[in-house]
């Protein structure tokens, strides 16, 4: 897999003394959409946090375009074109929608103009003067993804983008995710909503208790009910 844009090579991550990730490896190719699935507490979020540098892995390597990024602080990793969209969305509630976007664009060398972002999410344009706190859950998620887009991130790490959202909004966000994938953006998505995630992923990894348990295509996973039940509880 020498063509991988993002390569995670046997990382071990800890929260304090508790060992969360055990020799986890995965690859994401350029323009690929990869879903990382698993039960609650399997280590999916920890994997994304480790890649972003929020939680530095104790051993193993993470490479972006062949260059090691593990051990760098998150801001350095973001400047190399990786962008985490965290589970809690982390919208700045005291800033307006537009200020959230301008902040995200500050250090991006190829930042998009605001209008290009608003084309993706017309709703955000309507809400651009609203404070982050006034946004609905769906709007917050749009803004969280929009902050990654305005940075023109090469690789977007989406952590539970559909969590807690109404089905209609999930459908909307899945459409946007497909659109991004079709435009050749590289995405690593963590999701509890397996059906939604499988609908736009090229490849799937399944984590179980901090160990990589399975790797394959969405079709292969769907065709294997025993596997779905064992690792995903569906």
């Amino acid at each position: 897999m020498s063509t991988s844009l993002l390569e995670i090579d046997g990382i071990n991550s800890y929260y304090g003394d508790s060992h969360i990730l055990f020799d986890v490896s995965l690859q994401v190719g350029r323009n690929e959409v990869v879903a990382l699935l698993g039960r609650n507490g399997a280590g999916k979020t920890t994997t994304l946090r480790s890649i972003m540098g929020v939680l530095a892995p104790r051993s193993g390597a993470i490479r972006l375009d062949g260059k090691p990024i593990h051990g760098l602080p998150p801001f350095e990793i973001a400047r190399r074109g990786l962008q985490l969209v965290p589970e809690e969305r982390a919208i700045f509630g005291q800033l307006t929608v537009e200020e959230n976007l301008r902040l995200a664009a500050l250090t991006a060398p190829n930042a998009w103009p605001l209008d290009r972002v608003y084309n993706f999410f017309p709703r955000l344009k309507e809400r651009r003067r609203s404070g982050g706190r006034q946004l609905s859950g769906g709007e917050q998620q749009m803004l969280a993804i929009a902050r990654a887009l305005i940075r023109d991130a090469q690789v977007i790490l989406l952590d539970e983008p559909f969590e807690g959202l109404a089905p209609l909004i999930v459908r909307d966000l899945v459409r946007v995710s497909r659109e991004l994938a079709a435009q050749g953006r590289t995405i690593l998505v963590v999701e509890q909503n397996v059906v939604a995630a499988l609908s736009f992923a090229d490849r799937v990894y399944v984590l179980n208790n901090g160990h990589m348990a399975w790797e394959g295509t969405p079709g292969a996973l769907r065709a294997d009910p025993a596997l779905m039940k064992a690792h995903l509880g569906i």
Partner: protein
Amino acid sequence: MPSAPLLLSQAFNGLALGTLLALVSSGLTIILGTLGVLNFAHGALFMLGAYAMYVVIAHTGSFLLGILVGAMFMLVVGVLLERILIRLFYNRPHEDQILVTFGASIVIVEAVRAVFGGNSQHVPTPGWGEGIARIGFLFYPLYRLELIGIIAALLLLLYLILYRTSIGLVVRAGIEDARMVGILGINVQRAFLLVFAIGVVAAGVSGMLYAPIVSVQPDMGGNFLVEAFVVIVIGGLGSYPGAVVGGLIAGEIISITSAFDSAYSDVMLYAVMALLLVLRPQGLFGSEGRV
């Protein structure tokens, strides 16, 4: 019952004290909000500003030069303090941060006492501030009136920095969630340095402007530190508008109460704070669960 002119004059005193408290507290609150550090050295830095002013005026006789050189000096102090000491404590428990800033405060106060002695020093009122202004039937010291204007201008400047510049955008976002600011590609540590330095300059300049109306001595910052804490609790921790409004409220409470009985001015301030904590624990402009 105090006379109407006395009450009015105390209301003006409250405005002067209030704007000053607002400036001191805004430094304290943005440091607390962004860095998460409760800076117990803030009062000592206020005092240090007043002494910097005293030294420059003693050598040059220029009030304006005192402010400019003094502000530069405070900027250097702020940068050094953050790089050498405070930076090492961002990931430490709050108790450690309080202890180390409290320790820094003692070192600064005693260093000043060692150099200048414990006696109070006099900083003269600038030429353009001498005399008495007449407002209707009220006679009021001109410098205090100008002080209100100068500090209001500085608060406006701070507002423009915070709300109209990219640096301000980073600072306001950092107050909410410094980690996310880092994830968005911004070097938060560097922003922290800037915030700390701005906070220290705000404290120092407050001391400089206040110097002509009080006696400048090593312990002058202690009381201000306590009152600034009350201000940011009233206004809401980490909130700049809260520091400004809280400062004005505190200034008026202290001054108006003094018109009746000065012994009760601090009591009244704490009573108002306690009442507010019961009714609105997050402060006037604070949000719940922040800091």
